[in-house]
Structures are given as structure tokens and as C-alpha cells.
């Protein structure tokens, strides 16, 4: 299983805070993730995640380049839209 966590407005679009998917191949990359979300979740979510401002963390580490994503069974992917604190 790969756990995907949706933060901020992405949780609204996903209709939930997180999903779990069984990895169909050994590892999934960024394109696989988008395809997965488009087929199993919805197009709005996948489109929102394509925005350059959305960052990706793998197991609690933010990827410098999200296109380098490579996730396997047991991993947690977090999808991080622009933040606003304070």
C-alpha cells in the first residue's frame, strides 16, 4: 500500500484527508501518481495537483523536484498546496 495525504484545499477536492492505494508496479513515479489520481479520484484533484505551486513530500521529506518521485509499498506521499500560516 502507498498512502497519499491531501493537504489544504486538496483535501476538499479529494473529499478526504488521505487515500491508500496498492502499488500496481514495483514503484510509482510522478506520472503514475497523476494517472492514479485521475482514474481513482477525480480530474479536478489531478488538475489541481499539476499546478507548479503544489509540492510533494515523500515520507516526511519535501522533494526538491517532484518529478523525481519514486514511491513504493509502505511509503507516504503528501501533496502540499501553497501554505498560509501566521
Amino acid at each position, binding site marked *: 500500500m502507498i498512502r497519499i495525504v491531501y*493537504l489544504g484545499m486538496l483535501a*476538499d477536492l479529494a473529499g478526504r484527508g488521505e487515500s491508500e492505494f496498492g502499488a500496481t508496479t514495483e514503484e510509482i513515479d510522478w506520472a503514475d501518481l497523476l494517472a492514479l489520481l485521475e482514474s481513482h479520484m477525480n480530474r479536478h484533484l489531478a488538475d489541481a495537483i499539476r499546478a507548479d505551486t503544489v509540492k510533494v513530500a515523500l515520507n516526511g521529506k519535501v522533494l526538491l523536484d517532484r518529478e523525481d518521485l519514486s514511491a513504493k509499498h509502505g511509503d*507516504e506521499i503528501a501533496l502540499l498546496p501553497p501554505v*498560509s*500560516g*501566521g
Partner: protein
Amino acid sequence: MKLSAPADVRILENGFSVGEALAAFNAGHPVSGGIASFVGKVRPDGEVKALELTHYAPLTLPGMEDIAGRALERWQLDGILAWHRIGTLTSGQPIVLVAAAARHRRAAFDATDFVMDHLKSAAWFWKRERRGSGPNGGWHWITPHDADYAARNRWDSP
């Protein structure tokens, strides 16, 4: 109240007393010539019924600690405090409290300012507000303004 030194960084699920926190920080830094602080609160707004702050645990506290650590590296500080609320807040409640103790006033001021600028647009929090009521009510996500990014970026200039 016992604070950690040199940095006391917290994510708080419940309301807190600004006066008590600042009194403890002040008492904890008797040798500091100056202590600067900032508290940000939920502004009352006829339309806005509540504010909700969410975070992502694996990133948020480490990210805040990193911000506090950068302030400690950049200025000569005796200590720094950075507290941030999560959960649902209503008008008048404190969202964020930052304080810096230093030998020199400028360092205390600038470190507080720096940490606030980074908490605002470079820490892992997401904020939405509930506007209106009844069937017309709804949640609206808040994103930083260009001015917030500019405020943060000024610290990167040499």
C-alpha cells in the same frame, strides 16, 4: 511554565495565554537586554465565523524548528519562542506568538520579524475561514498575498 532553550517551538491544539507565555519567556531570559515579541490574532470580521488551521505533522514542527534555528544562526540571540495554533479558532484568539531575547534590540526585533515572515508563507500550515452562515455559508481557503512572499524574500537579499 517551563520553556525549552534556546528555542521553544510548539504547535498547539488548544488556546493559550499570551501574557503567561511572555511572562515565562521574559523571566527565562533575565540576562537579555531586550525582548521583542509579536502575537497574531484572529481579527473579528462580520462575515468570518471561524478560522481553521491544519498542518502536516511530519513536516510542520521540523519546519518551524528549522526557521527558529536559522534565526539563532543569523542573529546573536539568547533565546527564541515560536508557537503556532492549529484547529478551529474564533475572533480574538491568538494564532501565533513569536518572541526573541537578545543582548541587542535590533537582533531581537529582526529575529521576531524574520520568524513571523517565514511562519506566514514558508511553514507547513493551511488556513481556511468560514464565511457567512446557514446555506450561504462555506469554507474559503486563504493563500498568502504577494506582499507576504515579498516580506519573506527580503531576508534572502544580501
